């Protein structure tokens, strides 16, 4: 398994007059200076003057670049830049699933669409539904950007390619200096043109920054593919679908209370399309209203979810405590991004783990789980909902920008093959029932929702009597309730699978991962195992509680290294819970995923040390 982030293929495609060769070359120069290895493939139209706007007239320039493994210009692009419908059409058959397509939406008129040979407008039908599309009105934006310079229309128009290049530079966090110098150099006798190009590239870059454009990453299939029907899916879409599937398997309507925030907004936007499933999406006035409406919906019997990212998560802190106290089933999805504070909204990071497990006032335990690949966001969203409903507790699901915006093929699940979810609802009067009376096995209370006759009751955020749920200031009762709430969460461990690991014969080094870095960690360990190294790998999706056999696995190894995109949060968490082991750490805090290379270096180093 490998991810595209080790190397990337970009293709610039447009009309012959669109300056694609120049754009490609300039990008190549910059990436080369940044120390990447590169292979390029310029691909001109065969006819000398092919008709404008037709597929035959499309000019392309493909670049493959990366830190390693670049031996060819690449098969299929990860990012396609299409300056007009024809350019799109020409490349559509040869795209990686779920790749990013950057389009000039201004170029999509009825005429150009027809000329390119599309029946319908591909921006409006399903043609692009599997890709991550960035539609930008590039022509008009470029023109606006250059109005001050008093250029004629044509000259301004020529800068489109440079504007587009600016967007691509943003997507790859490449610096502009190199290219700006090139323009200064090249047009030193024509300062207006130099300025136009510089303005255009900056405008493109800033535009992408302003709209918080994010490129998607794509993970190829693992070697052994399970036979079946597949489609590509992003992590955020998979999360949305997993939630819908879970609600259906629980037989209750889905409710989402949320407020837009990068990179979580897509989940809300996906769900809101599916009103036909009776899913209720409430776009709240802020994150607090988002989670509070969710708590209200849970009280009233919906499968209730809220979605957000770091700063929004912070705002939900107080209300999560209320859900803990009232023991209501809600799911809180945090698509993590770079922090602290507003931080790096478009970058990936795993630094909200401590906040999830311990970031509340009082002793306030919740279940915390995480997803590991874009497609398995479906499963973990489903599992989060199952646990919430079957254990009457808030569940925090941690995903990451890298997962939410990343995509991979998903083996389509049918509703039939998914397990039933059994909410702990009580619908007819039970004489022994009390609002906080518990099941002996799971310590759960029953879900009795408003509208149910003869079981009216009141809940709230004050400490409550262990059985009746009435407000109680009794000191012993408080201690008991703190213990019960903790134990209830601990007992979830009795209802989840044991932790697994890969490398049964290994003894020396155990690599521990969690969350969205699964693919890369797996890849790195896999390669080392093939090289015969004494290394194993275990990846955590259940964070709180940990699977029951965790200590048993850890005890088999000489060394344990915890790898995460933060400053060591899971490592610290493990130290607190399983202090008997020593944990090495590998951390990266750059808003970027790991690379296989850096991981292998680190693991080799540990394997070589005594």
């Amino acid at each position, binding site marked *: 398994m490998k991810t595209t982030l080790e190397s990337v293929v970009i293709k610039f495609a447009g009309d012959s007059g669109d300056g694609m060769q120049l754009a490609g070359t300039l990008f190549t120069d910059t990436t080369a200076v940044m120390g990447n290895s590169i292979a390029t493939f310029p691909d001109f139209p065969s006819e000398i003057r092919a008709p404008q706007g037709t597929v035959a007239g499309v000019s392309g320039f493909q670049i493959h670049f990366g830190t390693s493994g670049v031996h060819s210009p690449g098969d299929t692009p990860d990012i396609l830049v299409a300056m007009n419908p024809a350019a799109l059409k020409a490349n559509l058959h040869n795209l990686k699933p779920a790749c990013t397509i950057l389009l000039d939406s201004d170029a999509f008129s009825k005429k150009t669409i027809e000329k390119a040979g599309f029946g319908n407008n591909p921006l409006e039908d399903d043609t692009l539904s599997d890709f991550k599309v960035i539609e930008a009105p590039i022509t008009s934006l470029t023109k606006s950007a250059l109005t001050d310079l008093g250029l004629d229309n044509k000259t301004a128009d020529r800068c489109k390619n440079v504007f587009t290049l600016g967007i691509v530079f943003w997507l790859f966090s490449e610096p502009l200096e190199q290219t700006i110098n090139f323009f200064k150099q090249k047009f030193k006798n024509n300062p207006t043109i130099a300025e136009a190009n510089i303005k255009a590239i900056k405008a493109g870059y800033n535009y992408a920054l302003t709209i918080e454009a994010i490129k998607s990453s794509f993970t190829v299939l693992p070697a052994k593919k399970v036979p*079946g029907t597949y489609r590509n899916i992003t992590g955020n879409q998979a999360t949305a679908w997993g939630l819908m599937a879970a609600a259906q398997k629980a037989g209750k309507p889905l409710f989402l209370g949320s407020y837009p925030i990068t990179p979580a907004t897509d989940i809300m936007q996906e769900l809101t399309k599916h009103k036909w499933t009776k899913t209720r999406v409430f776009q709240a006035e802020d994150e607090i209203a988002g989670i509070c409406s969710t708590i209200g919906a849970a*009280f*009233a*019997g919906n499968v209730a979810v809220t979605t957000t990212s770091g700063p929004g998560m912070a705002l939900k802190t107080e*209300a999560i405590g209320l859900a803990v106290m009232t023991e209501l089933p809600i799911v809180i999805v945090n698509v993590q991004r770079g922090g602290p504070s507003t931080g790096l909204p478009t970058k990936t990071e795993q630094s909200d783990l401590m906040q999830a497990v311990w970031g509340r006032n009082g002793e306030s335990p919740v279940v915390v789980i995480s997803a590991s690949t874009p497609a398995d966001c479906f499963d973990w969203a489903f599992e989060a909902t199952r646990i919430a409903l079957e254990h009457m507790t808030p569940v925090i699901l941690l995903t990451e920008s890298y997962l939410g915006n990343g995509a991979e093929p998903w083996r389509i699940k049918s509703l039939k093959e998914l397990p039933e979810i059994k909410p702990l609802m009580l619908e007819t009067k039970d004489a022994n029932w009390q609002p906080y009376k518990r099941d002996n096995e799971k310590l759960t209370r029953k879900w009795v929702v408003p509208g*149910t006759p*003869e079981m009216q009751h*009141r809940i709230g955020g004050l400490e409550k009597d262990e059985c009746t749920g*009435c407000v109680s200031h009794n000191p012993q009762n408080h201690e008991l309730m703190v213990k019960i709430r903790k134990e209830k969460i601990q007992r979830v461990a009795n209802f989840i699978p044991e932790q697994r690991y890969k490398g049964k014969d290994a003894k020396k080094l155990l690599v521990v991962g969690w969350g969205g870095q699964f693919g890369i960690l797996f890849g790195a360990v896999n390669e080392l195992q093939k090289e015969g190294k004494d290394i194993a790998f275990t990846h955590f999706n259940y964070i709180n509680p940990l699977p029951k056999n965790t200590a048993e696995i850890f005890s088999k190894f000489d060394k344990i290294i915890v790898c995460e995109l933060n400053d060591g949060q899971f490592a610290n968490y493990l130290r607190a819970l399983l202090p008997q082991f020593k944990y090495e750490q590998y951390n990266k805090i750059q808003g970027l995923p790991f690379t296989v290379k850096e991981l292998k270096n680190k693991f080799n180093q540990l394997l070589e040390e005594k």
Partner: protein
Amino acid sequence: MEATTLQCLYKPRDYASDQEVKWCPGCGDYAIISAVQKTFSELNLKKEDVTIVSGIGCSSRFPYYMNTYGFHTIHGRAAAVATGVKLANPDLSVWMMSGDGDSLAIGGNHFIHAVRRNININLILFNNEIYGLTKGQYSPTSERGKITKSSPYGTVESPFNVGELTLGSKGHFYARVPDTDVKLMTEVMKQAYLHEGFSVVEVLQNCVIFNDKTHADITSKETKLNNQILLEHGKPMLFGENNSKGLLLNGLDLEVVTIGENGISEEDILVHDASAKSNVLHNLLIQMKLPEFPIAMGVIRNADANVYDKAFFEQMENQEQLSKYKSLDDLFMSGNIFTINS
């Protein structure tokens, strides 16, 4: 209003829970709970169909005392929780109980948005112009200059007028009542229930401990006849002893006149139209202040408008009709799918 003429299902006290009521003796909240119980009884509400949501404050302990479903949430968030309840189950009768601090200080944002959306929830706003539970700090409705625990030299801020804020947030139902008149409260709460959309019922509530008599100029036996005017839809705006005084419009200003003086007769007096689409006159009535004017009581605004939950579910039903998918399986199998064989 048919409901009120039927035999009642429950007596008011049937709506009381088994929990002891814990407000201070003499607190205005007692009268409010009586009025709510009477209202429920007269409306024939089933206990299980009522959900009462509150925030935090003395007033917010309300749900504990009612034998309905109840949720004592966190400070300021009742409107948001109630919104979730209503959208999860629109058949429930959702009531929100909240103080001036809870709804207008920390909860101000949820208040204005619930009003704007016009979701079908009934808010009883206990306005004692003080933070009771935390022992007496000024609130956003405390009058300017008020000396409280947190303003030993008097406040330097001007208060909200609950009615103005409601209308400024696009509100379509606003009523004001004194905690001294259970009958009026009951009548007004019934109208709030019958109004589709978000209803704001402001109760001028007395906190005997931390802000005693703050509304006394308006509500006391001695002053109320002259200092209150009860507005009733379709009726002339009369008040005072023997209804001897009334309200007139003079340009864009209201004016108090005496019937029989300067040739004024009852016919000249403004007639209250709570259902007027325009809120201009409602705003003028809401803004009336002592000593120049009496304080307006009763249902001041009760106008029809789009209701959020109704539109929300209508759109849902439409989509159920229109959607090209009939099941999640349809959806999952849509778009570009491909098969991998073993």
